[in-house]
Every structure is written in structure tokens, then in C-alpha cells.
């Protein structure tokens, strides 16, 4: 997944090979991760797709089924992986992930400690941020989930930058071998204040900690515990609002009136298909945008803090 391996990096010349992980894209909200295998086939509502048809084509290609339906084959990225991975636990999404990486000041070469691993959604992005010279040590107290995470990291090709440990960080803290070595620490635990004293020992001078908690009571308790040894304590909430667009053709009499939501969607599809072959006439059509009706209300609070400089 990461461009650190020059043979795997995407390019005009790089084609899909046996053993590659591809993201099969049906629609923006319907994607699946598939491992390419010479004799396999991928089935969906559009028909059957032979993997052998995929081999030799570049990533980003449109491929067809036996019934004439099509999908796109995309190269995996941590963003796409977050959308297709199997949820063993609730995961973090791109808005929180991108903000965490920015605020933890992660760059190639950093050493990051994480607990809990969960489904590995954030872990994959952490690996991208610190590769090829840094490393992510991630811990989960659930043995099976840790094993599934290890498998996923192998599948996505980030396993050389991630080490998964089975450990109860709330109860035991982080392993002593990391004392004073961590550039950043990320906590997604039910009682993060129990892990904060250990985090303090692990962090390098001026190192940064982040704690993700869904409930405000957890945040309050964490902040109290942070005030002893940390400074620059800040808590945020981040959400993404998405927009949908529609082409409005004034001459076809498609006004604001009537129609159920279903028929409007159907008409919109027609507009888009019709538009592909014709020149766009700015007088007759405009593209409009509006926010999506469905929105996420809350994921969790992100609390960041820097280790106080006491020497």
C-alpha cells in the first residue's frame, strides 16, 4: 500500500498482478477489498468478474462482468482501506484520523505508541505517516482482534512498520522498553486516565499525547489527570459535512415542483448521462450543490497534550 516499496508504487507502467490487493469500486458508498488470484472470480449484482481479466491492466481501470456491468479497480490507500475494512470494533474515520496525525506532529522516523488497536483503521494511517524509518507499536487486550489486525496489516503491506502486542494498557501501562522513546502516543480506551501516568514515562521531551473519547465525562477525567504533567491541553470535535451536486436544466421544465425523492434521483441520473455526450451550454444548465441529508452527529472528543518540559 505504501510507496516506500518502489516495485509496488503506482505509476503509468505499474499493472495489476497476481497477489495484489485491489479495491473494487462499484459506487462511492459500495467498495470491497479483493486479493487478485488468477483463477478466482468476483461476484456482485452486476455479474461475475474474472480476475484473469484484471491482471495486466493498470489500476484505475474500468473492468466488465460477463453481463456487461462494470466496476473500477483502485489501488489501496489508507483512506480507501478505512472504508472497506471489516469492523471488529467501532473505527475512526478520515476526519478524526487526519486531524490526529496532524496534531501528533507525525513525520517519517517517528515512534508512535497506540492503544487499543481495534480494527486497525487509524493504525494504517499512522504507519503511512512514520514509514519507512519510523514504527508503530500498537496494543490491544483482545487476543483475537490483535491477530485479525496483524492479518490485515500483512494484507495491506504495512506490517513491516507495525508491531501488534497483546497487552492491557489500562492495567499494566506500556512496556518499559519504550521509556523516553515515544514521539507520540494515541489512546482510544474506556478509561484513558489509568494509562496517562505510563504515557508520561514513555514520551520523549515535548512529546505529544492524544486521547479519543466518545463521552464528555471521560474527557473531563482525562484532562484532570493530564494537568499534572502535561501542558497545552486542548480538546476538539471534528466532523465532515458532505455535499451532493445536481445539474439543473432550465429548458427541460424540471422545476422545483413535485416528484418524490425517488423520482428526483432518477431524473438526476438521466441528466448526468445525457450530459456526457453534449457540449455544456452554460445558459441552459447550472450545477448546484447542497449538503447531504444524512450527517454524522458525533464520533468522539479528541484531547491533545504536550509533555511538560521539567528539566
Amino acid at each position, binding site marked *: 500500500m505504501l*510507496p516506500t516499496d*518502489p516495485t509496488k*508504487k*503506482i*505509476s*503509468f*507502467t505499474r499493472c495489476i498482478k497476481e497477489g495484489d490487493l485491489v479495491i473494487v*469500486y462499484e459506487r*462511492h458508498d459500495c467498495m470491497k477489498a479483493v486479493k487478485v488470484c488468477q483463477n478466482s472470480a468476483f461476484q456482485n449484482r452486476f455479474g461475475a468478474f474474472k480476475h484473469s481479466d484484471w491482471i495486466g491492466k493498470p*489500476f*484505475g*481501470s474500468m473492468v466488465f462482468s460477463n453481463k456487461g456491468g*462494470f466496476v*473500477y479497480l*483502485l*489501488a489501496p*490507500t*489508507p*483512506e480507501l482501506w478505512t472504508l472497506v475494512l471489516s469492523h471488529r470494533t467501532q473505527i475512526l474515520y*478520515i476526519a478524526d484520523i*487526519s*486531524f490526529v*496525525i*496532524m*496534531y501528533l506532529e507525525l*513525520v*517519517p*522516523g*517517528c515512534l508512535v505508541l497506540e492503544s487499543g488497536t481495534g480494527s486497525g483503521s487509524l493504525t494504517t*494511517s499512522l504507519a503511512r505517516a512514520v514509514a519507512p524509518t519510523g*514504527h508503530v507499536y500498537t496494543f490491544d487486550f483482545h487476543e483475537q482482534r490483535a491477530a485479525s489486525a496483524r492479518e490485515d496489516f500483512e494484507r495491506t503491506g504495512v506490517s513491516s512498520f507495525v508491531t501488534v502486542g497483546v497487552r492491557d494498557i489500562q492495567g499494566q501501562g506500556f512496556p518499559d*522498553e*519504550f521509556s*523516553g*522513546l515515544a514521539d507520540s502516543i494515541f489512546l482510544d480506551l474506556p478509561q484513558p486516565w489509568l494509562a496517562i501516568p505510563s504515557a508520561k514515562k514513555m514520551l*520523549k521531551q*515535548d512529546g505529544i499525547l492524544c486521547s479519543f473519547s466518545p463521552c*464528555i465525562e471521560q*474527557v*473531563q477525567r482525562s*484532562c484532570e489527570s493530564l*494537568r*499534572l*504533567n502535561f*501542558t*497545552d491541553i*486542548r480538546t476538539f*470535535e*471534528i*466532523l*465532515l*459535512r*458532505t455535499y451532493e*451536486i445536481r445539474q439543473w436544466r432550465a429548458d427541460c421544465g424540471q422545476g422545483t415542483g413535485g416528484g418524490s425523492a425517488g423520482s428526483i434521483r432518477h431524473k438526476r441520473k438521466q441528466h*448526468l448521462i445525457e*450530459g*456526457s455526450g453534449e457540449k*455544456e451550454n452554460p445558459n441552459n444548465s447550472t450545477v448546484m*450543490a447542497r449538503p447531504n441529508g444524512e450527517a454524522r452527529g458525533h464520533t468522539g472528543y479528541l484531547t491533545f497534550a504536550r509533555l511538560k*518540559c521539567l528539566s
Partner: protein
Amino acid sequence: MSQNNVQLDPIRNAQVTWEGCSVLLDINDGDRLVFARLTSGSTLKIGNKNCSLQPLIGCPFGSLFQVDNGKEGPNLSRVIPSPEDDVQEKEDAQISGEFRDNRAIVDDNKAQCLSGEDIDEMRRQGATGEEIVEALIANSATFEKKTSFSQEKYKLKKQKKYAPKVLLRRPFARSICEAYFKKNPARIGFLRVDTLSLLLSMGNVAANSDVLVVDMAGGLLTGAVAERLGGTGYVCNTCIGDSPYPMDIVRIFNFSNEICKSIVRASVSDVTSQSETSEQSDQLESACNMEIQSNEQKSSSVSMEDISLSSENGVSDLILEANHSPVNKISKSHKVGEKASQETLKLWKENGFSSMIVVAPELDPWSFVKDLLPLLSYSAPFAIYHQYLQPLATCMHSLQVRKMAIGLQISEPWLREYQVLPSRTHPCMQMSGCGGYILSGTRTATNASSQQ
């Protein structure tokens, strides 16, 4: 520190300041943010006094300093905070807080008995900031009537004025973006820190990538991408038209030589044309070099840039005193934004760019994205930022209709900060209303001419 089997990368920034390095000074816990270059001659104005920044050289990032009223005038001295004291005070305060309210307090500005002259006299006699604050509290008629929360707030306010603290911070994409967004957002195209972080993720920025950027944010985007590349791969700063965009902000990042080399410039015609048109590229090269030189000259005459918030006495942007010795330092500092070599251009033409990030709030995106997108490798992600929704909507539609990209999405990030204090937890009163919009997607391998 034990090494174990953990590889510690030398590229990672040093933990201690050095002469000539660029720093971010955080005055009074985020109230005022100042970028500075640490030289023996540089100074910082706090209140109405100038303090030398020399004591800061050689100190670890994260150290705290306070202003001391010495005989020669105010100077900055290092403070080692003791963790336990703060916590104890606040706990005591909470217990007694429940029994008071403000029904008898009248805000007529007559509560304080000490005058400005009294305070100056105390200063002349060598009183520390803390002593002045204690005196103000003792001489306030209404202090005892206040709730404990109100007392805390009062004390904090006086401390900020009479015993200001300066925190030495390492400039990083996050702090540079926040500082500019607070005081001079127009310079960075109103790019908020969460929006910038999304651009970096959606643009799949990682070591060994070749990222194409259109950066009209003064170099902030280029610097942020280069930081995440860590010295490998390239960030190609391209311009639409003939004159390259300024990249001054890149200088604040304290980049090593290796990272500086990964930041290169190329015009759109350079990356799209064949090698025969080297004449054209030579003309552009001289234009680029002139731009870089004039930027160097500009920054050598202004060794510090103060982008402070207005403080209590309404001080706005100041250009602080220049000292000409930094000229030598800057010419030694690594050159950023060299023109991309023919070899590199060839590499990009053969392989394509790994991704593209655009911050061009003054331009219509579709007008140049249609020319830049073919330069990306197949299945490469891209992210386009704009302050306005409409240009992105038309761009998205055009991309959809020509099947040039899939997974297209327009997102608007929403960010809110919280104040978390015992019994006083709530979202902050102030909030940014808009962080702009991002159009993201992935380039397809089918091109417009061979539609299904």
C-alpha cells in the same frame, strides 16, 4: 536513551534550539503567537518593553520563560514549572466556590486601590510579576466577594499582564497554520488546520511519493507536504501561468538540507512538454530564480515577523527590529524551490505523480485541473481546496461527465474546540465559521477520448 531495536531517524528535528533556527513563541498560553529567528541580536516586545531572545538559544523546545524585572531592564529567564502546586490550588478553590454569587458586585472600575504609578514603583524596586499580582489581589475591594472561579479568572488575567510567560515552540505545520489562520488568514487562503490535515490525508502524502501541488497559500501547503515526505520523494510546486507563487512560509519550518532538496518548482509547461522546448523552460527558470532571490533579500531584512493578536493595548502587526547579522545565516540556509531537473521531469512523465493537492482560492479549479489531472498516475488520489462551494461543484460535475475521476466527494470540515475545566466544561465561545471546502477523488485509467 537506550536504542534497542528501534531505529531513530536523524532527520527528525533536533530537540534543542540553535543559533539561527526559527521558533514559535507562545505568549500567555496561546494569546499571542510570534515567529522569530534566534540570533544574539533578536528581541521580542512584551507589553512595552523589548527583551533579548538570546537566553533562548540552546534551550529545549517546550521550555518556559518568564519576564524578570532586572536592573538592566527586563529579560527572559527560564522557568521550571512545579507540577503539583497548580493542581492543589484549584482543588481548594472548587470546594468554596459554591456559596458565592455576583449580586452585590458593581462593575464601576473603582475596586482596585493600586494605581498604575504604584505598580511602576513596585517594578522599579525589583518586585517580581507574581508579587505585583498578589498586591493587586490584596488591594481589590471586590476580590473576596467573587466566586472561586471568578477569582481564578481574575488572577490569571493579572498574571498574563504582569507576569507573562513565553513558551518556546518548534514550528510545525500545525502550529504555523494555526498561527497564520488566527492573525493573517488571507496569506494562507483561509486554510484552517483541520482542512490542511484533510488535504494531506486525502492526498495520500507519504514518504517516497511525488506530490504535485498548486500552492497559493504562501508555501504553507508545500511545507506541510515536504514535512510528511521526510526528505524522500518530491513535492513539485507548480504555478498556473508564468509567475511562480511565493513560498516564504517554507523557511519557517527549519527544514534540513535533505528535505529542502525535495521541494522543487516546475511550471505546467515544464511537466507537460517534451525536452525540445528547453528554451521556454530556461526563460521560466530565470524568472523563478529572480523570485527566489528577491524573497531571500526580503527575509534577510526582516528577521522576525510578528503576527500577534491584539493585546490589551491594541497592538497590531509589528515588524520587529532587524539585525543584519542574520544575512549570513540565511545565505547559509538551504535553498528551497530549486527548479526540477530534466531527470526528475522525465521520471514524472514516465511514472506520473502519486497524487495532487491544490490550494488556489483565487482561481477556478476546472480551468487548470483538466490539464493537471492527466499528469497523475492512474488511480492516484487528488484533493482540491476552495473557499467557495460553487467552483468545486462545477469542477466535480465536469470530472464526472468526462469520467476522468471517480469517488468524487465535496466535503466541508467542521471544527470546534472545548474548554474543559471542573464544573466549567463547554465548547469555546468563539469558533471559526468556515474552513473551506475540499473536492477529493481518484483519477481513473480511462481517458476522455475512450469513453465506454
